[in-house]
């Protein structure tokens, strides 16, 4: 048993803190999901991606041959924790670029695909930005029932259909898409394939979907006779489901640390704020803060356990779902408490930049109005609990 980070990991932590102090404006904190929404945030995020790439941190755990730093999962964790605590934007290269597109290509891509896309992601340039298109209007949690079709015609596939909740589609240079290649497969899972789509191709329409506070995070994406070279098929035809499941492990390596870092920062902000205005002296408030502090510590060590299992070469099955559910509970509590602490000020529009009454740079309002988005993203809590029950407790399938 050893709960200590190595010297190398601690040194990295210090370097990232120095970087954050130098590169970010005073008091900076970016909210997740926010960066792709407006042009100014996006430009800043891209400028940071570039700098992170120069440091080699952007693709921390990727092997060096693909433009990564060859860092360990623990270094990746340290980087994720610190990057989110300080709110360094631009760490993901759109949706999935760093977290799963790159790692999936390493596992299943052709040499050509690897040589083309991996350096682009690792460079931190806008040409390395991805969006991920899985969900469809009629296939959310029941993802295997997607209907967007890809039909082979000579050296091409022709794609028709619609995706929804496609975050960052309006910023992405590439789309990582799951489609049906065999609608008649006995099990719907066996008819899915993954493709790389150039977002500049003819036949793609991106329509913004605004969330209820007016942030432009996700989109609907329509595909009308989109022609994709057959060389853009990733892995084997009809093997998409298994590829996605397999690559999920990589995505998961960064998520636990990222969530903890962000939550810790929000808690720290609330502690400082309530100490400043005297609310901390109210027993009810300080006890709620104390309770959340306990949950954050728990979240931290649970995430470490997931990374530890991965670092031993185990492929975590239910642990990332467990961590996701736990994080959603924490976000909800933080959002409720944060806005309770702000009181009347929590009514101010988080997008208004110049309101003199905005408290804590609008972070609590942003969290409050965004936390439900996280609860749906990458699997609803209910779906995650199914996974925890089925694989963690070995209970019968419940759906």
């Amino acid at each position, binding site marked *: *048993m050893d709960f200590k980070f190595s010297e190398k990991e601690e040194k990295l932590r210090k370097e990232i803190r120095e970087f954050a102090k130098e590169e970010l404006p005073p008091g900076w904190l970016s909210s997740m999901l926010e960066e792709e929404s407006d042009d100014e945030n996006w430009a800043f995020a891209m400028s940071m991606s570039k700098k992170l790439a120069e440091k080699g941190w952007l693709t921390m755990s990727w092997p060096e041959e693909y433009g990564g730093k060859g860092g360990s999962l623990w270094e990746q964790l340290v980087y994720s924790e610190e990057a989110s605590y300080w709110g360094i934007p631009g760490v993901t290269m759109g949706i999935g670029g760093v977290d799963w597109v790159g790692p999936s290509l390493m596992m299943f891509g052709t040499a050509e695909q690897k040589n083309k896309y991996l350096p682009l992601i690792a460079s931190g340039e806008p040409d390395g930005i991805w969006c991920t298109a899985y969900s469809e209007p009629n296939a959310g949690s029941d993802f295997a029932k997607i209907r967007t079709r890809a039909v082979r015609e000579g050296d091409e596939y022709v794609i028709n259909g619609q995706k929804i909740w496609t975050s960052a589609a309006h910023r992405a240079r590439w789309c990582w898409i799951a489609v049906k290649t065999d609608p008649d497969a006995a099990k719907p899972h066996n008819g899915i394939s993954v493709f790389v789509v150039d977002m500049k191709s003819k036949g793609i329409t991106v329509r913004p979907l605004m969330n209820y506070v007016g942030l432009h995070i996700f989109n609907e994406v329509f595909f009308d006779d989109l022609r994709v070279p057959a060389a853009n098929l990733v892995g084997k035809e009809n093997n998409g489901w298994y590829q996605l499941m397999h690559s999920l492990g990589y995505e998961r390596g960064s998520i636990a640390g990222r969530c903890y870092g962000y939550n810790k*920062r929000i808690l720290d902000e609330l502690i400082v704020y309530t100490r400043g205005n005297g609310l901390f002296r109210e027993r009810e408030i300080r006890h709620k803060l104390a*309770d959340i*502090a306990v949950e954050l510590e728990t979240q931290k*060590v*649970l995430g470490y356990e997931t990374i530890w299992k991965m670092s031993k070469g185990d492929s975590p099955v239910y642990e990332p779902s*467990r961590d996701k559910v736990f994080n959603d509970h924490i976000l909800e509590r933080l959002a409720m408490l944060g806005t309770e602490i702000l009181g009347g000020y929590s009514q101010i529009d988080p997008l208004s930049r110049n309101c003199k009454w905005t408290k804590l740079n609008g972070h609590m309002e942003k969290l409050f109005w965004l936390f439900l988005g996280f609860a749906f993203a990458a699997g609803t809590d209910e779906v995650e609990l*199914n996974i925890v*029950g089925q694989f963690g*407790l070995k209970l019968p399938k419940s759906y």
Partner: protein
Amino acid sequence: MDFDFSEDQVMIIDSARKFLEKECPKDKVRELKEDEKGYDPELWSRMAEMGWMGLILPEEYEGTGMDFFDLTILMEEMGRNILPAPFFDTVALCSLPILEYGTSEQKKRFLPKIACGEEIWTLALTEPSAGYEPSGVELRATSLQEDYVLEGTKLFVPYANVADRLLVVARTSQEGITVLIVDAGSQGIKTEVIPTTAHDKQCEVVFDKVRVPKDNVLGEVDKGWEIVEFLLQRVSVLKCAEMLGGAQFVLEMANSYAKERVQFDKPIGSFQAIQHKLAEVFINVEGLRRLVYEAAWNISTGSPSRLLTSMVKAKANEVYQQTCIQGVKVHGAIGFTEELDLSLYFLRTKASEFMLGDTGFHRERIAVELEDYQPLFMSV
């Protein structure tokens, strides 16, 4: 960072689990619930033969010199099997403070007896007036020549009915609290078992002009609260480990039941209402496990954290209780009966929660730490 157990630790866990399942099955637990002593002296000596009482005491005191983490995982097994014995009281609440604060003479005199299972000890701290705040200590120790004279009442003293000695936390001056080693057979001590729901032998101990030699002061006169803080900041993690073991077992019971119990032609565990309930409990038990290990490891390696220990106790209190409540719900009406083993665990949760600080107490301690702490982003 590495969460693997060492070979020795795996051995502790395996041997403890086998031993307890064999030597202390649930009908024995039930039997001891109605027993006057509340523990089985024969089982107690076999535990001593296993080396458990002296697990972390140095060899010079007949111990085996293992570390705090090793004791933590042993406690987890005891909680899992709900061992009814004054182990936590003797070893955790008493031998550890003696090892930390005792004079070399006290250590030589008392620790080998504990290690060999010859003596049962307990802590007399809480009173009718309070739980774990120093202001609640009203039992007076008045100096009289070579002795102190104790006058007052201690409440919820575990296993005082069978203890050979007690550590008594007494007021020696207006601001001063002193811990005294008291022979349980001293004249003027009257012990009565309190009828707790769990029948777990918690006692009222009345001290009527009890004389204690001044040599029996543990630590320094008037500075005894330090020893209580030692218990609150470190030893409470061992109680949390015991609670973790209990919660884990209750979860396993409920989980097996959900797989076996068929309604509407299906195992009830296949219904999301049941499955999600269990999944949430599971998540919390797993979280508690890592927290307990983190705190125990910190203590083992010499960097205990007041904040972390309070976090662990607050979490353990909540998780153990919730696990039992949800466990009963999954079982339905059978969960409400005496017959189900779950009840043995559930009934003990109140004692565990109260021991070394309830949730509100630790929440406040966490808040006190947060009030002074310097958040990282402020360091810029």
